[in-house]
């Protein structure tokens, strides 16, 4: 009841916001296409066809985006890439959400010295070029999906922790929490009835801003050859493949690049729009 109440105004404002509506629609469309597109296409993502390598886009036989050096259908592979990229990004965001919310909420709720130490740690970690550590991690351990999730999640939780901590801290100091104590609400009641519902909106919004960051990291790793491995693919890996053939077959670079850019753009617009909807003062 109260959770719904917390996001209701966001939903109401979002419906009036063209940016949010448009970017959300595009994202849903891409997501839908990634799910059912390969199923509609006659081609399989891993099946090679050396007689039809480097076919241009829209050039017949349902090769919508053309084919690559091995004659694999680029549309199906791009849709697979979208699926993999989104999957990794969403899982990674959930990981970072979990860490960030827990860390931030504890720091904010406990407060005092615990909070000071916990936030100094976050400040220190903020200063690190994390991606290098992730790459080191990838080098040291066998590459696998799980590790990618964890690694990306582990670097993206800092923002969430800061925001949740700030919110919790200010909520805790709001007088309605004092009022709740005075009427006899228990510690649990205060956390679950009075604090979390008011955190909910902000967390939802920042989650949409975490996803594009996770996408960026995943595709960067795949681009460098450290992420998803063949015959599986992701948008970063596809762009990397496209770079090698860009003079001969520019579509191999452009198609996945455009899709990737579009997804990132939509997520960023969505996040920005939602943030404004939650807090009109922080308009950027």
């Amino acid at each position, binding site marked *: 009841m109260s959770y719904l109440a917390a996001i209701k105004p966001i939903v109401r404002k979002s419906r009036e916001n063209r940016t949010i509506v448009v970017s959300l629609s595009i994202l849903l469309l891409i997501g839908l296409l990634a799910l059912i597109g390969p199923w509609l296409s006659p081609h399989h993502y891993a099946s090679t066809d050396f007689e039809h390598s480097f076919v241009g886009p829209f050039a017949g036989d349902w090769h919508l985006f053309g084919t690559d050096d091995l004659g694999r259908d680029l549309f199906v592979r791009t849709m697979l890439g979208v699926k993999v990229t989104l999957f990794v990004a969403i899982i990674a965001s959930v990981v970072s959400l979990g860490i960030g919310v827990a860390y931030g909420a504890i720091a904010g709720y406990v407060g005092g010295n615990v909070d000071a130490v916990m936030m100094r740690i976050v400040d220190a970690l903020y*200063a690190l070029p994390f991606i290098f550590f992730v790459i080191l991690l990838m080098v040291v351990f066998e590459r696998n999906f799980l590790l990618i999730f964890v690694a990306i999640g582990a670097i993206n939780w800092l923002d969430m922790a800061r925001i949740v901590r700030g919110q919790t801290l200010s909520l805790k100091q709001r007088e309605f929490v004092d009022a709740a104590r005075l009427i006899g609400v228990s510690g649990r009641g205060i956390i679950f009835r009075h604090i979390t519902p008011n955190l909910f909106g902000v967390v939802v919004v920042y989650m949409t801003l975490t996803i594009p960051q996770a996408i960026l990291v995943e*595709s960067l790793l795949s681009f460098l050859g450290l992420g998803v491995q063949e015959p599986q693919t992701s948008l970063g890996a596809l762009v990397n493949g496209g770079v090698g053939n860009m003079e001969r077959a520019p579509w191999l670079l*452009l198609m996945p690049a455009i899709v990737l850019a579009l997804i*990132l753009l939509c997520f960023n617009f969505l996040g920005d729009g939602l943030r404004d909807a939650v807090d009109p003062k922080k*308009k*950027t």
Partner: protein
Amino acid sequence: MLRYALLRILGAIPTLLLVIALAFLMVHAAPGGPFDAERVLPPEIEANVARAYHLDESLAQQFVRYLSGLVRGDLGPSYRYRDYSVADLIGRALPVTLQLGLLAMSLAVVVGIAAGLTAALSKNSYVDRFVTGVAMTGISVPVFVIAPVMVLIFAVYLDWLPASWTGGSGVSRLVLPGVALALPQIAYIARLTRASMIAVLSSDYVRTARAQGLRTRSIVRYHALKPAMLPLLSYLGPAIAGILTGSVVIEEVFGIPGVGQFFIRGALNRDYTLVMGIVIFYATLVILLNLVVDLLYGILDPRIRGR
């Protein structure tokens, strides 16, 4: 102020140690030793190799040894480039990376601030919409997409600039990688500048300045510029980290023999000491630059300076 500075400097030390320990432990927690992936060696040779690299000592001893080496600027030997030390390799590659990074950073700051200010001062105009639109694209499109697309356009189709490091010379071969590296940071800085300037311009004290009959030019110059630029200062740290990360990609795309390329080669070849060395080197660099930024902030913000 002195206390603030001292605190910051002292605060950086545990972070540095944390970084080193993290990288060190990661490498040493690797399943098996660093040489396991290679062909099986006779036990006595393996022992010799282990002794040569001090792998027979306890983890703590190795860590202390590594630390004491670090203090003297010794990052240990490379596992792959057997004849070189990690420090040698970084030293050789650093000038190129530095050149590229500095170019990108100055571009980012100059263009980013100029674009952001222009947009903020003509809020909601077409210029503003154009800048915000381009900036949004800039932060959304990753470097590894921008760079190859730029190569495709400016090198392959238009043939104005060399497509790779070896294909050109002098300034010309720096232009494409430098711009590509700077673009996302230009976008971030422009957005930040715009948002921050707009916030300052709608503050109560700017309203006071308007009530005092100051022209917009005077308001911006004397009242708004400094407070609007301060948040940018704290973005410089992340910007530096962003440029370093981007340089790895850029060096890969353009085939530039910089630190980033060694890093990727090292990563793909599982050259643990090299990768660890570069991670530590970069992390230290970023931490130190952040420290400088922090100190600058303390000097510029009167509310901190007073402490």
